[in-house]
């Protein structure tokens, strides 16, 4: 099973792909590849944030690379919180690595995130990709962990809720480290909040 088979299979929401990749010896590497590619794609799509912050060209490229890596770390947090939910609420005994691979592969549709950068079509594309990824998550979790659709749904929702909780509490120092890395690479304190970005743009270029 190679990388592209997994990409195509996951994107087309094929449950068999998930089962096989979990069982595959190279599953972990393939999953990491999917994650990095999706992360890079998403980083490009979010590139406008770097532009708004007036990041210089070389730092811009570095920032994209760092963003891809940070994307993987962000994923780990999300996977961790989902794992906690699975343990606590659903009593699943599946090993963590199996969940990690499943969740990582479910990010496959996000490889198209780059198209979020398209003018005007980008916003609807981002919505479609989010829904698509969530469906991939449901298909994957159902195929590998044996949860039914509703359980999968609640697992996703609660996992997200726990992640939010962690980010605002114990995860804060880690998030701060991520932020520090991003800012250091970008060379400017990055503004990422939507309202603040709008404010910067509204102030005009020369301000």
């Amino acid at each position, binding site marked *: 099973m190679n990388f592209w088979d997994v990409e195509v299979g996951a994107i087309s929401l094929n449950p068999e792909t998930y089962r096989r990749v979990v069982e595959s010896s190279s599953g972990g590497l393939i999953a990491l590849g999917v994650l990095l590619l999706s992360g890079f794609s998403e980083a490009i799509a979010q590139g406008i944030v770097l*532009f708004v912050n007036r990041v*210089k060209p070389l730092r811009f490229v570095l920032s994209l690379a760092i963003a891809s890596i940070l994307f993987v770390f962000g994923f780990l947090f999300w996977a961790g919180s989902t794992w906690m939910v699975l343990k606590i609420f659903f009593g699943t005994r599946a090993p963590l690595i199996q969940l990690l691979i499943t969740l990582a592969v479910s990010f496959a549709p996000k490889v198209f995130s780059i*198209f979020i950068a*398209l*003018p005007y079509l*980008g916003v609807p594309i981002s919505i479609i990709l989010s829904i698509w990824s969530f469906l991939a998550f449901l298909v994957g979790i159902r195929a590998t962990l044996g949860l039914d659709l509703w359980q999968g749904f609640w697992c996703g929702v609660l996992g997200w809720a726990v992640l939010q909780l962690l980010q605002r509490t114990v995860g804060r120092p880690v998030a701060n480290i991520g932020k520090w890395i991003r800012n250091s690479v970008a060379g400017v304190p990055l503004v990422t909040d939507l309202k603040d970005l709008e404010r910067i743009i509204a102030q005009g270029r020369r301000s």
Partner: protein
Amino acid sequence: MSNRKISRWIGLGLFTLVLSLVIGFSTVIQGVLLAITLTLAGLAATWNFSLQIISILIITLMFAGLLIPLEALGWWAGWYDDDLDTASYPGTLEEPIPENTDIRKYVIYLDGICQSHSQYLPEVEIFLNELAIALPDDIALIRGLMPYSVLNKPLTEDRWLSFLWRKADHYQMTASGGIFGLLIGVTINIRNTLIVGVAADQRYGPIYNQATAQMIYDSLIHHGYWRGCGIPITILGYSGGGQMAAGAAPYVKRALAAPIELVSLAGVISGNHNLLAVEHLYHIVGDNDLVEKQGPVIFPRRWQLLFLSYWNRAKARGKISFISLGPVGHNAANGPYGAEARLPDGRTHLQQTVEVISGILQGTSAVVSAARATTPSHYDLYQQAAFNRPEFYPLDQTVDPGLYQAIAPWLGRLILPTPQERYTLRGVWFEVHHAPTEYQHLIGKVIPLCWSSDAATQRFVKTTTKAVHFSQEAEDSQRQGVIHPDRLNHWQQVDPLESLAGARPNDDVIVALTDFVEVQSADNSQEDHPAYGLRINREPLQITGRYYGLVKILQVAELQSQTAVETLTITNAASTSILAAPAIQTSRLFRVAHYDRATHQFNGAEEIVSFPQVVLSKYGSYPSTTRDIEKMPLNETGWYIYGAKDANGMFVVQAIAPRALFRLLPDKVIIGKQKSWRYLKKQAWQVKGKKGQIKSVMLVGAEETGNREQETEDAIPDHTLKPVRVASPQELTRSLEPLSPASQFWNEGDRALVLHVYGGIGGKKREPAARTPIFFGHFAYGVATVIREPLADELKFDIQYHQVYSHNIDGIVAGRFAWNRFMGDRQIGWLGTRPVCDVLIKLESFTGAFDVYGKKYSVLNVLLYELEVMIARYRIGDGTGGTYVGPAHNCCQDSNQALYAALKRVRNAIQSDPKFVEELQDDPGEAERFEQLIKLTEGIRQKLLPFGSARADWQNNQSSLGISPEEDFFQGVSVGLRSWRTLLPRVASEAIAKQFLDQGATLWVLRTNQIGGNDPDIEPIAPTQFGW
């Protein structure tokens, strides 16, 4: 070819095969089979090839789509050289402006998506040439900007792909390259379409549009524009240029603080830009334009479902006019620039486009027909009576100067200029009714009336000048019979004089020019250039009548009937079919005795004057009556009568005012803060049993001393409640001052702030607004001045109101009102029908003046200025054509917004200039008054702003009038509750009066309760008192 078609072919082949077998033509069958096989194979190959081509195209497009925002983003991030000069292509003028020309308007043309450099397609060049010829010399038409590049750089120069764009441009211009050339040529369109997508994008748009705004800004500055000059700007965008214009306009407005209009010709506009910030968008589209029609489909912000989008809100507020070009397409020969294609009326498409656009740019195009009233208004009804129309009073009639006085030195009728006249006139016409002695020869002439050119006046005019385009609400409201400034609809740059002259359907606004009047005369007058013109620096004062006299009504002389003639021709066309003119109009003739200044009695000349029967209101009651007026107690002290003579030389009384109300002779004097406050709160608004009576009470906020109150209480008998006290001739011959306690506090020339509140009409003929137990009433500020009235030779209050008044069915126009107009007018005044409480407040620190840098600085003047700004804004509803009563905006809220603005200005002046404070405090008396002023303003601020901070629109002075309460219902209610004290007229009046009392002000309460004749069908209703 689709699979379905291929299947159909296969089916047909099989069918033919079977048929052939049956009929046994084997050789033919073989031949046919071969042919079918070859055809299918060919089709499949073509299909695959087509699919591949389409795939490549899509991928290329996506790739291009991802790269296309980079130019704008790089510009924003500063990736290009820091010394990048976006002003290096500032565009050119289509036609040079002659020297010494004052440019009236700047127009910037932005082309459609075919543009690759400053040279346009041939048909566009012809259009611009024709347009420049059609426009007058003082409109500058700028062309040649490249809105499809943030750097304003042509595609054909200094770029990696310049060679491709040059080729594409060549094929686009010549159409000589066949299909290949067409494909190459269309790449410019595709590239620029993607750019339009960037400009329309929520994320990239704000960045890209700022770049476009920057290039427009640079171009304007290059061509002589300067920030703050106020010259209107129009951005004319064709097709994709419409989107670019809509995106950039709000930023250009912010940068230049100028009025900006958009003209979109076949524009494809996304609708997610702040169109509320621009004056107006004219959206001009042909019926056969299939490209523009995509806009409302592909751009969600233009779907009606998203009713809160900028596009839909702008549409609802009347900011967008949709203009059809008839059977015209989007581009090429059948498009709006088509020089050959003809319309049914014989004009070419191009001719029509030039006519429509030049008409809009010059403000002479009647682009949209205004809504007509379907329900007659009070104004329509009242106009049926001839005496309510100015032409009823010939200008050549004169009066006995011993008996009558001119109401004001300069008095006349405002006449709205035509759209063609207004740019040369820059004001309105003024039919002179009264003029000072040296200008008597002007009486009867129509001369220009303009704003003074001094800086302060021009600042006021600039603040209040706005384009008027009726919102949907204004049109709906007009259909319901409310009087809106219909004649001003779709006028650009309407100034406060025009909005006053054009406020009603007819030129019947009669005004006095107060304060400064500068007479300008031209030596070499021609027929179309009047020799004289007037310049003023304040809003004219709306008045009723031309002359006034002081009389006592002796008896009814006779009842006169006259046919109402030609009453309907003057009202607007739609309502004429609904209105039925009364066949007979009656007038009561009264014998009156004039006041004799020598004897101080009503034993002067006697004459007969006419009181025409006023027209019945729609609510079933008469706005005033003369029934038993001669028996009323107030008749003993006399009436001021205002009017003019009719064609028969009979003096017609248009307005009345009871003399007793204005004399500085109070019924009662109350001294002490607490007692004064108690009176204001508990007794001032007593209406039960007071119908037909007035009350004049002086309140002194100074601390009580000894038993003075006992002496003064009821010192002067109540001349309304009790049998009237008639002053003896001996008493009247004496000077007023020694008699009256008022003389200690009020002197000739003193000014007072007026808080005006009126109540409701109850009784059998109750008005609709008074059908619920709560009656809000109405609030206004005003100013009262103590003057010596020459006919009676006594001091009296001259009261003027600054009425912040919503559009209404009576035709009352927000503005400065003389008391005799707003209250005393027998047809539209409220004296006969509503209870009114005017609180006159005199506090030297507020109503007097400080000496600052050798000039008089009066806080009251600052307030009056702010009120005049507000009433000018009200007349045109901040450009929407209408104002409506709601919790956030109404007479009380907005009058007090003016007060807030005035206090803010005073505070800013104090904070920004330490010397200013020194000037205010430079003598001990002034220092004390300054201290008092600070306490007063703080007290008022705390009362007006119970929750600590002002409403956002008050703080920012936003143009938010004209939004119907329904549109912003929840916000309106929330804003109303937050500023609740200024929501309720009576509460506001009392709260503000108390602040002044606390600082020791002297107040004078003037109460009237349905004064004039006796109408048994109505009763006064006091505004509801809300807790404290």
